[in-house]
């Protein structure tokens, strides 16, 4: 599989989960992959690592100087704080909007001048940017920012660069399992959540990586400015499912 042969990709937040899944698939497809994160090198085979806080514009600009030209930018780095507006602190705002919103802006601004015609930017939005997850106010809003910026980049920087967002639903990570453990009856909560997915399973990082590969490839040459939801059908259904009561 060499759909990305000869392309150079920079994936933010490549330590684990969706970012790791995308980095690995891009490698398999023949791309040269660079990732970054706030911590130490996780040691992914064949993947270059840089320590970076995407919320820091000077640091992003400095790293862009080092990395140079790329064909594919994936803005995957993200954080979440589980609070309502009333409970959120200024520090919560700075953290969530800093990474999820300003971070995407920082990397786009730094790398767009370093991308040639045919370049593809893939932002990780969320179904939470369309419909609200309870007690995730800043996260939901930050993802709506990502959706809006995606359209702006596509409009302003076409035809040279395409820009799309992937909106994942519930992806199997440690975070999802931790959520079920908090339930009164974890097994019931898990079954209930599964029954709300028409495909009767949760997503895997590879499901998102598969869409990222397509959007990064030249096969997606006519796709730009769009939000691609990959959620196993969950948001196609009403949040009210009387069959479950």
């Amino acid at each position, binding site marked *: 599989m060499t759909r990305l042969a000869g392309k150079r990709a920079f994936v933010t937040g490549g330590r684990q989960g969706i970012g790791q899944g995308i980095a690995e698939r891009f490698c398999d497809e023949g791309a040269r992959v660079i990732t970054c994160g706030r911590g130490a090198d996780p040691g992914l085979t064949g993947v270059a690592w840089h320590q970076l806080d995407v919320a820091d514009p000077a640091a992003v600009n400095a790293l862009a100087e080092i990395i140079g030209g790329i064909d594919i930018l994936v803005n995957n780095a993200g954080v979440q704080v589980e609070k309502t507006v009333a409970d959120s602190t200024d520090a919560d705002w700075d953290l969530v909007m800093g990474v999820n919103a300003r971070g995407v802006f920082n990397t786009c601004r730094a790398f767009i001048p370093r991308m040639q015609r045919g370049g593809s930017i893939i932002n990780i939005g969320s*179904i*939470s940017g369309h*419909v*609200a*997850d*309870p007690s995730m106010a800043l996260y939901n809003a930050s993802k709506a920012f990502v959706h809006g910026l995606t359209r702006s980049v596509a409009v302003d920087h076409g035809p040279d660069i395409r820009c799309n967002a992937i909106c994942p639903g519930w992806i199997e990570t440690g975070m999802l399992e931790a*959520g079920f453990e*908090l*339930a*009164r009856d974890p097994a*019931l*909560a898990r079954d*209930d*959540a599964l029954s*709300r997915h028409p495909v009767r399973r949760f997503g895997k990082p590879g499901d998102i990586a598969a869409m990222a590969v397509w959007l990064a490839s030249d096969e997606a040459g006519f796709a730009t400015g769009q939000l691609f939801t990959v959620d196993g059908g*969950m*948001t*196609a*259904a*009403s*949040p*009210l*499912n*009387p*069959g*479950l*009561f």
Partner: protein
Amino acid sequence: MKLEGKTALVTGGRGGIGRAIVRRFHDEGARVFAADLSPDGSFDDTGAEAGEFITLDVTSENDAIAAMAHVGEQAGQLDILVNAAGIEIEKTIEDTTLEEWNQSFAVNVTGTFLTAKHALPLLRRAAAAGSSASIINFGSYDGFIADPGLAAYCATKGAVHALTRAMACDHGPEGIRVNAICPGYIDTPMLQSFFEGEGSGGGGGTIETLQQAVRDVHPMRSYGTPEDIANLVNWLASDEARYASGQLWVLDGGLSAQVQQMRL
């Protein structure tokens, strides 16, 4: 009173939502024609606030022509058309017969088309006389996201949404505004039938526990009343809404603003 001097026709005028709209229009000073299959439809309604009844099967073009001829003779023009007639088949596509599918489209989509088509000359007359003529269709939040086991209904409502935008484009230049209201769960005979239906209450609860569970999923912690819908219909029908056209107005107590709720 917002609708003084205006003439309105409401299809499904004896149904749960239609009846509330007829009454509200009457209270706001409009002359109202309530059109339905029979005067005792879902609700047997009499008195001035029940409007002037017209027998109308919205799937019949002859009925639509006759109804508009009657309104033309009686009132000379039509300022407001509300397409509130609708039916709901509670089945997946596999269980839906072709007859049921066709009937769903005949009432919900073709009915909207026929009634609006033959109302246009009367609406144009109102617009020419300086009225902000208004067609209000009934879509549904089900036109955006699906309820299980309501396939034909979901499809017809999606069609009404697209038809609403198309009509707004085509007839805006003639001074006719076209909007759709997309209700969520509204306390009507249709909703009660849904509660009592086989497709719901799978957990073995009673209708009361199901109703409470449905309320609890809504950010407003209740489902809506026909009067809630009539409030927005009244605004869209009035001259205050003269710049509102081509839009789908979701009124659902916040239901569709949220993602699926994890049961914790």
